[in-house]
């Protein structure tokens, strides 16, 4: 079982990202689960969402406390939330930033300017699909094809196409 924790701000689509990831993993033939820590937070406040992926049906129903991966959709969160909390040793962090951010050595941090990609491609700073492309590249836990398929299902039409393109750019950037 692998567990993923999403850190975002209300309105950035962290909950949708967790669901797209679960659906993509399911598309890859795995079992998966995604759920928000559903607060009453409004737009802008820090939010949490979780995904689990496994080869067998997932029964457990509690929050993710020791993730294998953490996705941080906004580097501003580093100052207010301990995004590394419980992260497994050698766990990977996918971090949206264009700055040089100091992080602990025990984690593998993948930095990506997702906001820049989102602004270029989508014209709005919504980074959830971009981060999923980066996640697929950094971890290999889910295929880019499935991510793209589910993104297009989630956002039909042109918006879906653009989001898929943004995810692909992020994927390629991480892959180098």
């Amino acid at each position: 079982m692998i567990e993923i924790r999403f850190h975002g701000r209300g309105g950035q689509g962290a909950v949708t990202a967790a669901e797209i990831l679960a659906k993509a993993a399911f598309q890859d033939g795995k079992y998966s689960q995604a759920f928000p820590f559903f607060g009453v937070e409004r737009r802008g406040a820090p939010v949490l969402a979780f995904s689990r992926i496994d080869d067998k049906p997932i029964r457990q129903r509690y929050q993710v406390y020791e993730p294998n991966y953490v996705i941080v959709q906004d580097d501003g969160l580093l100052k207010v939330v301990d995004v590394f909390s419980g992260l497994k040793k050698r766990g990977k962090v996918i971090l949206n930033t264009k700055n040089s951010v100091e992080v602990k050595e025990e984690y593998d941090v993948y930095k990506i300017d997702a906001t820049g990609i989102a602004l270029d491609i989508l014209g709005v700073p919504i980074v959830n699909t971009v981060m999923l492309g980066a996640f697929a590249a950094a971890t290999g836990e889910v295929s880019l094809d499935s991510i793209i398929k589910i993104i297009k299902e989630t956002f039909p039409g042109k918006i879906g196409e653009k989001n898929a393109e943004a995810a692909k750019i992020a994927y390629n950037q991480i892959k180098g």
Partner: protein
Amino acid sequence: MVLKIATANRAVAEAAKLSNVNVIPVYPITPATSIAEYLAKFVADGEMDAEYVRVESEHSAMSVAIGASSTGARVFTATSSQGLALMHEVLFIAAGMRAPIVMANANRALSAPLSIWNDQQDSISERDSGWIQIYAENAQEALDFVIQSYRITEHPEVLLPAMVCLDGFILTHTVEPVDVPEKEVVSDFVSTYKPANAILDPENPMSIGTFTDPNYYMEARHDMYNAMINSKNIIRNVNKEFGEIFGREYDFVENYRCDDAEIIIVAMGSVCGTVKDVIDEIRREGEKVGLLKLRVFRPFPTDEINAVVKNADKIAVLDKNVSFDIGGALYNEIKAKLDVDAYGFIIGLGGRDVTPEHIRKIVKETKKPEKDVQWIGLREEEI
């Protein structure tokens, strides 16, 4: 069968769509709201041929449901927590009028203090309303139980409404794989509603919801009591038939590694999944622990529970509800109906996460119990 990945709320709405429902009176409330939204969309898109009544309260939702059901329509509604509490009066009436209504309840804590998160205080507080109560562990069960409920409630020997309970957020907002059966198969299974007892029809006038004096009230309630007892047979048969058609078998209880268990945990709803995982771990460490998952809370399957737990040394009963001073409802019912050494644990109120550590603690406490009833997972620091 179509394997989808969906929330339990989506699964429940799909189940209503598949079940040839005629009338949907519903008032949105967190965390049941998306059920109301999905159904509204199904009707708006012509995927579902039903009357969607946008009522102004849950009290009216259940009242519309009774009116529609009494006119011969198959009815579905959904609610949660304060909404269920607002329905309280009409829940008793629906059961007393023997209206075979099916409702999903997204289990959520009751105020005060205000909480939108999960526990089961809301439905447990309606346990004496005369409704059949079934608790789902996952989205699949939520879908299956809604479909089954139409067959159970509409059976002439039952005619009691049924409440399918699914834990708020933990199920309602979690996406996971769900088998959505084909429309034709479900349609054959549930057929269309044919009123067996009462119907408002000018061709055959009858008076429904009459006034009884002390000469007659007790008999009506006694009939309900018998109907609840009779429903056990019907539930058993429906389970069997459902299993044959859909390949998923359910019983009143699920026996998870109980046969040689020294300690058996008894629980309802979504927490059972976590408990199963913890039991697997503990068993690897050499301890004999099992889970009895209670699926049907009303009617109360005393014999079925007893058959599973009778050889255990100790029983740990988990309750996401509390009856003040005497512990959880399930704990008290187990104590009252069975001759077992049982201990009660209050868990997960108001959305408090129930973790494997909590389950381990419960097993530990059950081995050397210090108190009859304990609260697990309380914060220790002061605010």
